[in-house]
């Protein structure tokens, strides 16, 4: 009884709970910035910790100790308290992700529903955050964020549909298990290989938009609207927003790993119960960083797009491609 409670508390607070997720978020922040910098022949974060690995945390701490300024035009209640609870849905979303096991900490037959709901609610939170700060630039940022949600929502969900059709289930556990075994005797049976490649491509593009990284950083566009919806936030509020952005990155990339790269699966070498969890964790991390590097590579090599181009491009190319790939999947691989 007490053991169960202790395990439960350990799992929620330490691993794979809040602590681990936040550490992963700061780690990803560092990884993204370091790789981004190396691609530009810069050094990148260097002074906080070994190779600057604590940079994300240092930024968070520094921002959190700064003064909170609430503008006159802002909606006081939302401006003060919404940033605090904004990261919560993402942390909850991370509980669904299988990391050391084939099923997540929370597992249900309808995981994907919850995840889509969480992704939408995060973007909606950002829109409200921008609107509540009462600045014109923030409002433009919010409206652009909304435009991106409208443009990329459908292709994003359609790209996830591929994995769902293959597994014939909405649960992440079934999706992971459907990717066991090998293809053509040498390729792992991941959704990435084969028709799922198209879905993965669409997923990556939509993930960049969801994360507001270049070339889809229009809602924040520093040189146009001075930071968009995050503009007016300072001090602790902004620290939470920084955390939210890092957490979002962890969540979306983990989702990509689970849906297309077989989650924690990999060769087990016939090992037993405690060691298999370690192996799973290592495989998951490797895949996670691979996807992170792909995202960084794309976002470092393109210029920011205009919102007009984004909406147009998304509805003329991306959405039809996503629908076509789903139809092909159903016809060729059986639904």
């Amino acid at each position, binding site marked *: 009884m007490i053991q169960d409670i202790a395990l439960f508390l350990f799992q929620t607070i330490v691993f794979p709970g809040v602590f681990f997720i936040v550490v992963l978020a700061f780690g990803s922040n560092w990884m993204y910035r370091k790789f981004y910098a190396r*691609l530009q022949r*810069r050094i990148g974060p260097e002074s906080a910790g070994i190779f600057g690995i604590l940079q994300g945390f240092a930024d968070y701490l520094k921002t959190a100790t700064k003064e909170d300024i609430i503008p006159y035009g802002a909606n006081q209640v939302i401006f003060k308290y919404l940033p605090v609870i904004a990261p919560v849905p993402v942390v909850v979303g991370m509980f669904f992700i299988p990391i050391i096991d084939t099923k997540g900490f929370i597992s249900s037959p309808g995981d994907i529903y919850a995840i889509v709901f969480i992704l939408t609610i995060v973007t909606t939170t950002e829109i409200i955050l921008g609107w509540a700060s009462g600045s014109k630039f923030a409002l*433009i940022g919010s409206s652009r964020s909304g435009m991106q949600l409208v443009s990329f929502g459908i292709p994003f969900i359609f790209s996830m549909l591929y994995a769902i059709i293959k597994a014939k289930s909405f649960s992440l556990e079934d999706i992971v298990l459907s990717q066991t075994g090998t293809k053509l005797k040498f390729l792992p049976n991941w959704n990435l290989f084969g028709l799922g490649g198209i879905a993965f491509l669409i997923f990556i593009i939509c993930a960049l938009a969801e994360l507001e990284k270049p070339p889809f950083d229009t809602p924040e566009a*520093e*040189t146009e609207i001075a930071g968009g919806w995050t503009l007016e936030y300072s001090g602790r509020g902004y620290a939470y927003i920084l955390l939210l952005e890092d957490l979002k990155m962890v969540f979306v990339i983990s989702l990509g790993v689970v849906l297309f790269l077989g989650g924690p699966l990999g060769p087990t070498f016939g090992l037993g119960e405690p060691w298999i969890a370690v192996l799973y964790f290592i495989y998951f991390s490797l895949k996670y960083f691979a996807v992170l590097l792909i995202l960084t590579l794309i976002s*470092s090599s393109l210029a920011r797009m205009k919102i007009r181009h984004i909406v147009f491009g998304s509805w003329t190319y991306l959405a039809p491609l996503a629908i076509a790939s789903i139809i092909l999947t159903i016809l060729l691989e059986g639904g």
Partner: protein
Amino acid sequence: MNEEQTSFNIGPQHPALKEPETFRVIVEGERVVKAEAILGHTHRGIEKMAESRDYNKTLYLAERICGICSFAHNANFARAVEFVADVKVPKRAEFLRVLVAELERLHSHLLWLGVLAHEIGFDTFYILVWNDRETIMDLLETLTGNRVNYGMNRIGGVRFDLNDEIKKIMRDKIEEFKPRLEKIRDVVLNSKTIIARTNGVGRISKDLARKTCVTGPTARSSGIDWDLRRDEPYFIYEQLDFNVPISDRGDVYSKIILRVKELFESIKIIEQVLDLIPSGKIFQDVRGRFEGKAVSRIEAPRGENFHYVEFRKSKNPYRLKVRAPTYANVVSSVEALVGHHIADIPVIVAANDPCFSCTDRTLIIDRDKGRYQIMSARDLRKLSVETTKEVMQ
């Protein structure tokens, strides 16, 4: 303004503008319907300061008008004073002046290209271009000892000479720089996102360009075939062989292409200078008080740079008047903003390579009563004290 319209200010504090200048735009949704520029945030009173310094000191003051085209202002002032003093500058000095002027054009255009890439959100290109720019900065440092304000000129010549060792370094580095420049050209010509963000954006037609009196690359990209280096040659430009690239499209993309082409021309000029430079003295001694007035015009990287100087039997200039090229170009960019989207504003504003601190002057205009007044230093100080008191309360 009707109900659907809203106005906001880009600047004086805005990440897109590194210098304090206000662009007030009225937008409908994301579309700009009206724009105006409000200048005058960084008036430094340099023209007035010049009146209390002798010409040798003013030379260094003129250099500080602009951090990027410092040599253009410096050389321009020196040239104007040389007209007044009626000195003949040695040939070798003029070659050296051209050398530094073209190196400065290289670094200025590369800086601009980086800034534009940053404005369109292409940070990788921005950093890589600036990395290549370091080569040119190093060359300038090798020759003059400084990266930004070179202190190259003196009245009657130049201060630093070129020896065989520096000549060799220059040739090697320029040779090393060429393939990198070709790479930059390939990126500019082929990157889909750069084309999508700049092609057809901020078009300045030939008529508008004439009407707003633009100069430099901005004018040449709008089809006005005018380059002082070729049309009113100064220093030794008439002995050199180079082309003046022209485009008639007038949009931001054509400005990028045009400036990249100018980079290649500058390299051509530098190579010729290194080949042709004669030996001899590098300066003519100039002393004493002068009387007279002179105008000097130089093709700075951003356009035509104008210095008027007047001496009345004095060492201090009685009057110095400077017109930096941005002052001529800023009006055209305001006109070009109308009809574009918010996302295009920084791109269009940056496309002219604006340098507002060179441009600013203070002129109070009472629009209702139709009178105007130039503020003196005392007025400005009084105003500053009053405003501070107001703020403190």
